[in-house]
């Protein structure tokens, strides 16, 4: 029975990851992140992703702030925020978020405000979904690590 909980949780993690890859939420770049994680940096992926969440939320607030301005016209500034978000999203393998950023960028290139608003709503939705799913993944990973750390005393009869 030793480690059964950890094995089940490992299976849950892999199922969730497979789902996220299949849905196009994540791509192979996420695997690159995982390959950088080792015994010397056991929480590397969650640390990088949490930094990504922190920075992305700032950028999303900036984007919304710009678009809500009554006399908004600074598409160049919007493009700068978008490029940062797109770059960091692609670097962690957030495929759907990156793709929405691409569509958003096209709307800014055409100075299309209503297109930008639609893209922003889609972006916020995709980002929320990604964040929830990755939190779920990290939670399972944490539980698995705890379960794997449980040791039952050996009984000598």
């Amino acid at each position, binding site marked *: 029975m030793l480690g059964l909980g950890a094995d089940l949780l490992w299976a849950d993690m892999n199922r969730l990851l497979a789902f996220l890859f299949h849905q196009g939420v994540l791509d192979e770049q996420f695997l690159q992140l995982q390959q950088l994680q080792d015994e010397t940096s056991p929480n*590397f992926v969650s640390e990088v992703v949490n930094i990504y969440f922190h920075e992305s939320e700032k950028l999303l607030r900036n984007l919304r702030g710009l678009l809500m301005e009554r006399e908004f016209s600074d598409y160049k500034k919007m493009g700068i925020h978008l*490029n940062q978000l797109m770059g960091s999203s692609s670097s962690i393998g957030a495929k759907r978020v990156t793709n929405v950023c691409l569509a958003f960028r096209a709307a800014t290139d055409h100075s299309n405000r209503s297109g930008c608003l639609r893209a922003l709503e889609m972006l916020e939705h995709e980002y929320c979904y990604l964040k929830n799913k990755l939190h779920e993944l990290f939670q399972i990973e944490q539980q698995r690590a705890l379960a794997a750390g449980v040791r039952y005393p050996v009984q000598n009869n």
Partner: protein
Amino acid sequence: MIHQWMLNKVGVKNQAAENGKEAVQIHCSGQGFDLILMDKEMPLMNGIEATKELRSMGICSKIVGVSSHSEEKQIQEFMEAGLDDYLVKPLNMAKLRSILDNIM
């Protein structure tokens, strides 16, 4: 952070700058590097401005631009600032190794 970890993984000593201005300041302090990975989108001073500044300072290190842009016009603008090469994000180990192999 990800690029730093990738470089650490292949045993390359490296230093990160938060923005283009800091990258220039690091060079002004006399430090030299074999390779500069230059992000295009940076606050305070972007990659194009920083590359131009470094070249005008006489910095001959290999500078490789990194950006999410893949359109030819955008790449050309960045290359003309003084890059030796350009990589589209995301950077992965294979792309990084190809750049490092060219230096060694």
